[in-house]
């Protein structure tokens, strides 16, 4: 479904270079795109193209060397609970039980106890972890830990959900299950989501819009709008066509950057 709502986030020719001991290393080069309200945007690209750095810049965890990031019109300077992040390595607080992990954001922002209890329980049920409130992260499986990560992000009543390859570490079977459960969580609790992944099926299954990034330094090379009805099936002919087209585009990018073609030639394309 076409999301024509107002703009949620606006990025204006963003670029980022890391200063490492052996010279500077350009990761992102002149990205301009925007994120619309309640849209499920997926940033898709090969392994090492600075997707995670881009996400961190959107969240305010990383500064940007050039360009600006705006969220609801204000410049993004440092992390804020309205831009919740779900980490690839889950980054749960190992010494807190599931309940305290999820309720952490509200506790820290001094939301009154009664509402906090209610919200925490609501989101724990939402992600299907009822009954595990008092166990420690070390006692949970990978999939369950990621659910706690999602519940924790949601519980901070975010405006935008930034997810950094959350299912990267999970085995295939749990990955599909998590994709489905993320789908219905998103259906119940509509939020703008920016989802980073390098898995083509995951991108097509979840996304309303896909932004394809080239290899390092990451640039936007193509944008696809996916308007297949949800929940999508992986064997739908349209799904397969799109998948073939995107993979071809990916391989094209791959060969260009490997061949003698330099950056300039890429721009004219």
């Amino acid at each position: 479904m076409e999301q024509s709502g107002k703009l949620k986030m606006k990025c204006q020719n963003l670029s980022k270079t890391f200063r490492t001991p052996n010279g500077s290393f350009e990761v992102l080069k002149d990205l301009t795109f925007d994120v619309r309200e309640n849209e499920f945007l997926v940033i898709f690209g090969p392994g090492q193209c600075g997707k995670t750095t881009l996400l961190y810049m959107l969240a305010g965890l990383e500064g940007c060397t050039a360009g600006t990031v705006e969220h609801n019109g204000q410049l993004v300077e440092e992390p804020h609970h309205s831009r919740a992040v779900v980490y690839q390595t889950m980054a749960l607080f190992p010494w807190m039980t599931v309940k305290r992990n999820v309720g952490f954001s509200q506790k820290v922002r001094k939301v009154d106890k009664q509402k906090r209890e209610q919200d925490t329980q609501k989101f724990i049920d939402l992600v299907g972890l009822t009954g595990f409130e008092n166990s420690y992260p070390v006692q949970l499986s990978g999939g369950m830990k990621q659910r706690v990560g999602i519940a924790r992000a949601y519980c901070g009543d975010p405006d935008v959900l930034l997810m950094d390859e959350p299912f990267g570490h999970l085995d295939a079977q749990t990955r599909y299950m998590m994709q489905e459960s993320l789908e219905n969580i998103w259906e119940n609790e509509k939020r703008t989501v920016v989802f980073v992944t390098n898995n083509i099926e995951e991108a097509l299954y979840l996304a309303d819009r896909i932004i394809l990034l080239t290899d390092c330094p990451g640039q936007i090379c193509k944008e696809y709008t996916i308007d297949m009805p949800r929940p999508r099936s992986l064997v739908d002919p349209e799904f397969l066509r799109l998948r073939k087209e995107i993979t071809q585009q990916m391989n094209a990018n791959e060969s260009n950057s490997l061949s003698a073609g330099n950056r300039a030639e890429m721009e004219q394309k």
Partner: protein
Amino acid sequence: MSKKNQRARALAYGGGTFLLLLFLWEILVRMTDSQIPFPTPFAVIERFVDMLFHNVGYYYTIVGHVLWSLSRVLAGFCMAAVLGIVLGLTMGWFPYVRAIFMPIFNLLRPIAPLAWIPLAILWFGIGEKYKYFLIFIAAFVPFTLNSYAGATHVDKQLVGAAKMLGANNAQVFFEIVVPAAVPSIFSGAQVALSNSWMTMLAAEMVCATEGIGWIIIAGQAVNDMTQMIAGMLAIGIVGFLLANGMRLLERRCLVWNNQGN
């Protein structure tokens, strides 16, 4: 493997090593023909048992001496725990605190507790207080160092996540840095415990009328090796119990980090 027979296995292995060492000691004594009456293990154990019932030096049996030494060690240890952890964590997390205290701490850190004796007597007189001070100094350094290391090695991502969820700097310190440093603090506590026991002997060497260190020093004065080694046996046993007590405490506090040692 059920809990019970795992503990039995541990007991067997531990006991086995002890017996092996005692056996080695026995051979060593038999083998060396040197004149010094190096006591055999059984002589030491017999003397230790004897000390359990008869007074060593007029007032106390060895149990009384152990309690005296224990009271000094624990007093100094707890003071060092409180101050050391607070200073270590704040130094690890807040740059200004680090800038102020780190140079002074580094300068005073390597100084041996033994070297502090004259100043300790000057400041605290010759009763119990100077002994608390010496043990405090010995236990303070490992606590501070390990808390500092714990605070600096906290996982950056967890800090980022906490900030993202809206925690301000103080909340990040209390909710994230302190719990993350707890495993390191406990290993600091283990080292501090053994340091304080070591310094207890030095403290009791100067002027004491009771305590295990005093027993050992008295034994040294009259070249009574059995009394000295029996005193060391007492320290070893108490140290062993304390170390395991500390480990139990750690296992209960660190249930979330089941790799706790």
